[in-house]
């Protein structure tokens, strides 16, 4: 193996220009694909933060007797995906409103009677915080006879989720496209290298070298190219991330959400994929070049 590695490194040094072109091509592909990954991870984090704040507000009919409240609360607690049901009486609701309005609270002083209904605040378990499940639960609660209205706010979150899913799909598509394109570029570069070294390969075959003896250094070369391309692509992304995050972060990080770089396991996956790209590129061109 040491011999093959030595030959691969020797080959890279002898064909510096072609190898540099391949590595840059892989690096750019990785930069584009990993930019998508970075966007998805942060958008996904942002959505999770928003989801955590999601709750269903249940407003009761004005004439709902107080005796029915505990039963109603129990019924909602028994529904699938419900974590907590908190009763908010109309008086408490008015107090909260006053607190929220502060300076304008004088406006509420002139009210002859409390216009707010009794209600419940329903929070979901983590697994039920996606848009479809929230909507399903809301419909179920709305069907209760004592319930006048259900509000689960942030309806836009549903639309945003759809857009996000669309982007995810497009991201996968583009990722696959760039993967194939990178394989194609590597294959072409390796083919050029093979073409410039066809005499050498022919000599090796004539002196009794098996195909594996010829191929293995090229495979190693492809894997090295892939690894270097992947690392350079991610470094470029990190530089861009540092430049952008310092500006963008200020707008978003007011809440619990923090913009972050790709986690370690994703970085490893990207570099591994990049190495596979290099290896596949070699495989394709060697298969064509070393035909009997």
């Amino acid at each position: 193996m040491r011999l093959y590695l030595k030959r691969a490194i020797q080959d890279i040094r002898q064909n510096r220009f072609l190898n540099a072109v391949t590595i840059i091509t892989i690096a750019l592909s990785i930069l584009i694909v990993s930019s998508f990954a970075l966007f998805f991870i942060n958008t996904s984090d942002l959505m999770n933060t928003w989801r955590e704040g999601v709750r269903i507000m249940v407003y009761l009919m004005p004439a709902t007797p107080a005796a029915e409240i505990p039963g109603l609360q129990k019924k909602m607690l028994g529904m699938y995906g419900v974590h907590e049901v908190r009763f908010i009486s109309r008086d408490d609701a008015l107090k909260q409103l006053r607190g929220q309005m502060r300076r304008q609270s004088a406006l509420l002083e002139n009210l002859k009677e409390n216009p707010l209904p009794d209600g419940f605040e329903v929070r979901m378990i983590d697994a039920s915080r996606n848009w479809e499940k929230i909507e399903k639960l809301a419909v179920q609660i709305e069907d209760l006879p004592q319930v006048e209205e259900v509000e689960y706010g942030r309806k836009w979150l549903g639309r945003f989720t759809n857009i996000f899913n669309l982007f995810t799909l497009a991201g996968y598509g583009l990722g696959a496209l760039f993967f194939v394109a990178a394989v194609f570029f590597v294959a072409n570069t390796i083919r050029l290298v093979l073409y410039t070294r066809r005499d050498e390969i022919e000599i090796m075959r004539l002196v009794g070298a098996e195909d594996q003896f010829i191929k293995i250094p090229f495979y190693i070369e492809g894997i090295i190219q892939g690894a270097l391309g992947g690392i350079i692509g991610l470094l470029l992304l990190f530089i861009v991330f540092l430049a952008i995050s310092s500006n963008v972060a200020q707008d978003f990080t007011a809440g619990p959400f923090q913009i972050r770089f790709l986690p370690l396991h994703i970085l490893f996956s990207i570099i591994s994929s990049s190495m596979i790209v290099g290896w596949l590129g070699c495989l394709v061109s060697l298969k064509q070049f070393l035909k009997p």
Partner: protein
Amino acid sequence: MTGGEEKYAIVRLFHVYRSYGPKNALVDITLDIYKNEFLFISGPSGAGKTTLLKLLYIAEPVSDGQILVDGMNLSRIPRKKIPFLRRNFGIVFQDYKLIPTKTVYENVSLVLEAKGQKQRMIQKKVNSVLRTVGMEQRLNALPPSLSGGEQQRVAIARAVVGDPKIILADEPTGSLDTESAGFIFNLLKGFHTRGTTVVIATHDRELIRKSGGRVVNLNAGRLIETSDI
């Protein structure tokens, strides 16, 4: 070949044809090459000498007929076994075919590396062979910096380093001056003396006359005559 030994045909050709489209390069060649023989394949340019050698190490396929090398039928040999067949031969090419980006040492060691031999063994063997051909001082030189005679010596070192059963030399002295040609010829003779079968394709009548050995004459792809000098 020594007189008392029983003749063993290490290479056998039976009615071999090789054609390129309508043009016949070799026509109905039947020939035995014996173990430890010093054989010349002679004939003018275009007679089919190089083609005949190429058929032996499967650089080209036969169009018709059969070739046996040490009992192996080349028509039936699987693709994967071709490298192993080629290791029976030490090939000295007309144009040397040295890798210009590799040093003298690397060009010669390549054969043993391809065989998967250990580096220590390779180093020992390569140094010994380069000493035999008088190139031990030029280990790290690149082929383009060598003279024609030196390149041919490296080519011979590469051909013999793997201890082949048969040396195939295609016009080994063709482009060399008399002195270099004599040195190369003596090297080949030396390997023959040590027990290797040597087949030389040449049109150099003077070389053949001096050497002694069996001569196979080809003309326009046909075997004209076989004679002992």
